[in-house]
């Protein structure tokens, strides 16, 4: 008889996520993923000025800050036929890259590392041995004996104070922790360093968008005027700051993140065959080099992979109503056309209809509806999205630099390509793409400098700024990639106002409940077969769920109180 375990709240994520899992004979036999918070942006967006939408949509998520604003301005530009100047595209790419660098590195150290690193075990480490080990991994100058001794003393003081704070009541000493004390000390030291560094790279957002989190965006370009001869515009000083931040980020990624990731992974190779889950992968692609309408010029290509067949990449189109459709069989909504219906986002309906247990509750009724997330499908298939999907689509599309990076990491660990289809593979993919992005960012920066040098200062296309230039009706779709995976917004503009606005976000793909035919989505499928050593300590569940980097700020579906036209928004 299986035992039902509940993990709520899942911590070290964004948002409100609950996992219920059946464990039998020390292995998970079934799993249920539930989003337990909903806000409401879409009905709020209706009737507003489309040029304002980015500010509303950006508040969908403060961890994926920037990407919702990016998807939003792209959606409006797509609807109105606006082409942005090359410099604005570069600025957006630089902001995109800065966001990924901060978000992925913070995910590894602050959100994911404590699943692999035993903080208390670090007290038993010999700082000399940690320094020796660190010296073999990289030439990062900070990795000295006195540095590791200081960190160890700090952890010791914390433990002896009796107030463990964020480390209290965790799973220290759990048999699943495999790192030697010296590697644990290395992990703890770099956890603290990364916390300190991550506030630097996002200064790229402050330069171009005025602040982080939630930098400012602009339909038609970027708000920051550039003029190397003016003290009040983006000039050489501002650009030099961005250049330095990129160089520092490259050093952190090359000298700290990647060496640590590979070192930790080498102790957990069994996790290269756990947590694989779905066999289908979806990526919208991003980082355009020749405008948003030329996906062939994206650094991350667009496409879908089915059944792990890397010999074929399927074409993906957000405007094709046969491709992306959503159902609500296990979600707290109702459809006018019936429970079994599936709808493309442009025709979407959403009517919030909570039918779950009365609070406080112990278990959800997973036979019925159990989540605020709807269930999206691509041509009927459940798809995984995220860093692994992006790399696989790029790999299968024959992108040489991606292939080299992936093959290099696999060779270092001595594992085959199949190892990517796992919890460890997902975590490694995030690291590999971070390294690629850090170096691409430098290229974007150089191109921006070249443009300015050649006299191109344009940052904004004002042609369609005035609503009087707009058609009576327009619809658009904006595709992007959040750090957690494929992100899309849809808009319908009527009479200069938003008539409909919708989002389908990465965690809706990965964390949604099963569909009407019983097909599980990525979180649920990936947990099947996962071993659980101590039933009331969910360390293994956290490892796999964190490998997706959940971001659930909401399944913000919205409803029309009068039950007429209904639509929705879903948020990471």
């Amino acid at each position: 008889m299986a035992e039902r375990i509940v993990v709520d709240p899942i911590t070290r994520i964004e948002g409100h996520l609950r996992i219920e899992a059946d464990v039998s004979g020390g292995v998970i036999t079934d799993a249920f993923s539930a989003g337990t918070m909903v806000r409401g942006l879409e009905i709020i967006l209706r009737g507003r000025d489309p040029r304002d939408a980015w500010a509303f949509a950006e508040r969908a998520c403060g961890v994926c800050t920037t990407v919702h604003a990016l998807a939003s301005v792209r959606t409006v530009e797509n609807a109105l036929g606006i082409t942005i100047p090359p410099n604005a595209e570069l600025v957006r790419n630089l902001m995109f890259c800065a966001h990924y660098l901060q978000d992925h590195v913070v995910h590894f150290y602050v959100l994911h590392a404590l699943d692999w690193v035993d903080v208390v075990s670090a007290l038993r480490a010999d700082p000399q041995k940690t320094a020796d080990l660190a010296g073999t991994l990289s030439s990062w100058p900070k990795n000295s004996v006195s540095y590791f001794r200081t960190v160890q003393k700090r952890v010791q003081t914390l433990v002896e104070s009796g107030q463990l704070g964020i480390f209290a009541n965790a799973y220290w000493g759990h048999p699943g922790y495999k790192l030697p004390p010296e590697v644990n000390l290395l992990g703890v030291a770099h956890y603290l360093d990364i916390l300190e560094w991550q506030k630097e790279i996002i200064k790229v957002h402050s330069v171009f968008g005025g602040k982080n989190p939630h930098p400012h965006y602009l339909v038609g370009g970027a708000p920051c005027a550039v003029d190397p001869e003016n003290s009040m515009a983006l000039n050489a000083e501002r650009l030099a700051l961005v250049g330095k931040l990129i160089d520092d980020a490259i050093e952190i990624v090359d000298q700290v993140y990647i060496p640590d990731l590979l070192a930790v992974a080498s102790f957990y190779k069994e996790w290269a065959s756990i947590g694989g889950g779905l066999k289908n992968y979806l990526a919208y692609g991003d980082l355009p080099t020749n405008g948003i309408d030329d996906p062939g010029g994206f650094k991350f290509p667009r496409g879908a992979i089915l059944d792990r067949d890397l010999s074929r990449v399927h074409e993906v189109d957000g405007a094709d109503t046969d491709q992306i459709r959503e159902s609500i069989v296990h979600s707290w909504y109702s459809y006018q056309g019936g429970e079994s219906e599936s709808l493309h986002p442009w025709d979407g309906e959403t009517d919030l209809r909570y039918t779950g247990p009365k609070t406080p509750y112990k278990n959800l009724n997973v036979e019925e509806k159990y989540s605020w997330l709807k269930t999206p499908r691509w041509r009927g298939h459940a798809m995984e999205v995220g860093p692994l999907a992006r790399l696989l689509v790029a790999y299968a599309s024959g992108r040489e630099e991606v292939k080299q990076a992936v093959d290099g990491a696999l060779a270092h660990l001595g594992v085959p390509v199949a190892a990517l289809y796992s919890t460890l593979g997902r975590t490694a993919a995030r690291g590999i793409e971070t390294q690629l992005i850090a170096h691409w960012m430098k290229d974007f920066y150089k191109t921006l400098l070249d443009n300015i040098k050649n006299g191109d200062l344009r940052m904004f296309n004002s042609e369609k700024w005035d609503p009087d230039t707009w058609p009576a009706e327009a619809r658009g779709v904006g595709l992007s990639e959040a750090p957690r995976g494929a992100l899309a917004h849809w808009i319908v503009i009527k009479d200069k106002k938003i008539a409909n606005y919708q989002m389908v976000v990465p965690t809706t793909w990965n964390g949604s409940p099963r569909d009407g035919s019983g097909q599980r989505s990525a979180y649920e499928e990936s947990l099947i077969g996962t071993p659980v050593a101590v039933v009331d300590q969910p360390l293994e569940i956290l490892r796999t769920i964190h490998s997706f980097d959940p971001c659930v700020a909401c399944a913000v579906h919205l409803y029309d109180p009068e039950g007429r036209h209904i639509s929705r928004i879903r948020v990471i």
Partner: protein
Amino acid sequence: MPKQSMTLWELMESRGTTRRDFLKSCGYLSAALGLSATQMTRLVWALESKPRPPVVWFHFQECTCCSESFIKSSHPLVADIVLDRISLDYSLTLQAAAGKQAEEALHQTMTKYPGQYIMAVEGSVPTKGDGVYCTVAGQTALEILREAAKNAAAVIAWGSCASNGCVQAAAPNPTGATPIHKILKKVVNVPGCPPIGEVMAGVVVHLLAFGRLPQLDSQGRPKAFYSTRIHDSCYRRPYYDAGLFVETFDDANARKGYCLYKMGCRGPETYNSCGIIRWNNGVSYPIESGAPCIGCSEAGYFDNGPFYRRLPSFPGFGVETTADTLGAYLAAAAAGGIAVHAVATNLRKRRLIKKELETSLKDKDLKTGKKDEGGA
């Protein structure tokens, strides 16, 4: 007996900071907090010797931008706050334990330190539908909030969601998103979407250093950070006074850094420290990067749009005006049926103002200002 944790000074010393640099960084903090020299001595003392108060940090209807902003504080650093200055016993974002163990940690703190723990809330609370729109561990946000508040020493509402409802409370507020001060009494509101990281850290340091809440204005905001309009601290203010404005984004005036008033800037009606402290350790703020302020720390800012429409009333109040006196004035003006713009003190710009007003009302049919009973 458990040893007392490392003080901030010990920590910085152990990292090679000199006493002189330490005092300098305290001085920076003092300046940010608006403290006198005597007060600074107390701050140094408090940072050196206070024990770590327990803090429980809740996430309700939010997007975690407040936590993201908090971890980007430059002084103090978040690791120094979280590991050395406070004991962060519950935080969905940072805490190692999950599920049952996380909830146990929360309840242990509430039981062990009644009347002593600080409660921080990120996010609004949905009140429609019996609160089912946000649950944690099977309990609604409303139930959790009320239970935890019973024995909290202080309640901090981080960000605009907790302070004024932010985006989810904008019309028509589908889930009944409600700010914390409408449910609990005596809340410190730290608005902004998000608040500046150093402001959040500054509020914590204030509590630790002085052992009491900072002085608040009538909206419950710490005066140290929310008593100045962005307009009055804006480095582009001289261009406003001279009547020099950006006419369209990226025009010649934009490159000269002229005033963004005509692009809809909300600086004239927004109380925040963006122009003083700036963002991300002083790098910039939206206006400095060419983007008009959207007023993200003001109640109802999402219903005060469209964002790119210039403010309909011309604000002519002096630099000395605070939120409270302006609020009192507006109330009196409304009662007396006096149009706000009529009191503009800058007579020199009357003609310009009139022209602005005429054009600014062009898009008035766009949705603005509708508010639901649940929101701010």
